[in-house]
């Protein structure tokens, strides 16, 4: 039982950076802008969080600076694919290379520095609940903040006018435009807000998981998040389940070995991606039968004002 709980705790911990990044991706893609630059944005967030933490020893400043920095870098993505109308795919990939290179360049001098990782703060009362308590309510503040972000993203997207507009931008930007809404402004907002969340996901690495700087600290998790956005069907609440499921896959790869269960590591490694393809296929088949469209209809499409489609 203890072992089982430890697996679930590890799943939440490993899933948290994925969750932040996925939420960021969901918000951006809901507005119709694909973001393949997640890995780069996470690395920028990780680097900035580490540097600020090293100099101020203040977690709040570190997280805020990471969000700000990734938000700023996202503006590049916005300018390139919203203002200059370049391909979102190419711009996103370029963003990844940019972020990876940038973090490596500035991180070079940080080798050997360490920071104090975030400590666990059990939530009074809730942490005593059997199983759920230790698994969900005995973590560091960033994990709790990720719960809040899930709620906030959901509320923003489904319960506010702003969210309705953001979602509409991803479905039918030309309609929004004809209603007098600025497609550019809403999409920029979503890209920057999404970028900030992705940056916080990156910050989780040096602030909690591996409290030092090492080149490529995210270990390619940004790419898993790209898959997760699709896996979660562009929904913040499903992103929560998806991130923990992928976190569980990461945690299981190690724990199954402890149990002596012989499953090919290559199988476990591809599991998140196979799951994504499988769920996507099954749900798409089901939705096609019912005539539902889950993917934002205008996702990845360049919007030209005043042109007919």
């Amino acid at each position, binding site marked *: 039982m203890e072992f089982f709980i*430890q697996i679930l705790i*590890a799943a939440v*911990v*490993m899933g948290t*950076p994925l969750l932040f990044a996925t939420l960021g991706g969901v918000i951006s893609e809901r507005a119709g802008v694909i973001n393949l630059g997640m890995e780069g944005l996470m690395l920028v967030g990780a680097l900035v969080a580490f540097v600020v933490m090293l100099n101020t020893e203040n977690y709040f400043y570190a997280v805020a600076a990471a969000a700000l920095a990734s938000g700023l870098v996202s503006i590049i993505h916005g300018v390139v694919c919203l203002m200059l109308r370049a391909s979102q795919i190419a711009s996103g990939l370029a963003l990844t290379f940019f972020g990876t290179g940038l973090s*490596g360049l500035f*991180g*070079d001098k940080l*080798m*050997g520095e*360490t920071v104090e*990782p975030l400590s666990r703060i059990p939530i009074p009362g809730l942490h005593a609940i059997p199983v759920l308590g230790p698994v969900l309510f005995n973590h560091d503040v960033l994990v709790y903040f990720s719960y809040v972000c899930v709620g906030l993203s959901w509320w923003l997207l489904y319960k506010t006018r702003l969210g309705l507009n953001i979602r509409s931008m991803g479905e039918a930007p030309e309609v929004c435009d004809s209603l007098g809404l600025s497609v550019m402004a809403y999409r920029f907002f979503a890209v920057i807000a999404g970028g900030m969340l992705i940056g916080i996901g990156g910050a989780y*690495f040096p602030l909690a*998981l*591996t*409290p*030092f*700087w*090492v*080149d*490529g*600290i*995210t*270990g*390619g*998790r940004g790419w898993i998040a790209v898959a997760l956005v699709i896996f979660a069907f562009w929904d913040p609440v499903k992103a929560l389940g998806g991130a923990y499921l992928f976190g569980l896959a*990461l*945690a299981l*790869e*190690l*724990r199954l*070995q*402890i149990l*002596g269960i*012989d499953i090919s*590591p*290559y199988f476990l*490694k591809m599991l998140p991606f196979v799951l994504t393809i499988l769920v996507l296929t099954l749900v798409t088949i089901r939705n096609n039968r019912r005539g539902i469209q889950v993917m934002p209809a205008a996702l990845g499409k360049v919007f030209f004002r005043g042109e007919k489609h």
Partner: protein
Amino acid sequence: MRKLISIMISVTLTLLLVGGTAWAGKPSVGFVYVGPVGDGGWTHAHDLGRKALEAAGHETSYVESVPEGDSERVIRKMARKHDIVFTTSFGYMDPTLKVAKQYPDKTFLHCSGFKQGKNMGNYFGRMYQAKYLAAMIGAGMSKKGRIGIVGSQPIPEIIRHINAITLGAQQVNPNIEVEVLWINSWFDPAKESDAAQALIDNGADVIVTMADSAATVQTSKKNGVYAIGNDTDMAIYGKEAHLTAAVWNWDVYYLAAVKAVENGTWKPGSDWWGLDSGIVGLTSFHPDVPQALIVQMNREKGRILSGATDVFDHGFTKQDGTRVTKALSDGEMLGMSYYVKGIISKAPSS
């Protein structure tokens, strides 16, 4: 006009001649790395060797984080640019051989593999000797009698190191238990950290990592247990936990190999240098390590240095209970795929 053309032709020929026969100065050296130079482990150690070449007046360059599956392109690029190319990951073996055939006038050296060609050799160090000695310190410092190993990729090299660690630990504590968790990656800090945590949760109080980052040292520090570093000195990441590290000193080899090529004495072969050459070694010890333990380890170290013993030459028992009595040949060590007795985890199936 005719004069001009003839001058141009002669200049071109001279240049070709100069370029084809002799180096303008010292040979230039290219490196292909599997990880980033800032990994603080494997690649970082190689890059320190490259810097030593640079200090010795060689022109060098490197490409980092080259995926093994996409390395041929990069190796070819380096071959065009440099006289000597070092490729520093097991998976670069076949691509290196292929490119070596295409550039017969360049020298290629591949680290940790076994294939050779007319102008390609391979090299490695007997890291298992250093791991063996480091494990003696680890076993002496384990109160629970349990060492946890974070394995990287399950290939013979790493399995050999894990076995050497187990045999070394048994020199100090014959009943030591060794548990291994494979992260199936060379470099994934978050997962390395999680693996260390899982091993500690399961009872280990000394963690040895085979992976490239210092994440395990950090995690050990957080949990108040000891750790042994890999490839480079990782004490800066958590000196409270860091017992010692088995490290590479690649400069020893790189300087010698490049010198041999420069002097024209280099021949393709398999260089597998040991503790005595200085290519591998241990870093300074944690202040908690008792002097008696260091003395015991040094005695064994002296025996290895004098050639009186090696790790796999005086008999051991495999995990399945069969007894090995003969000394293992280099070939048998290079192809090791079984665990020795004392490891409680199941050997990876390949």
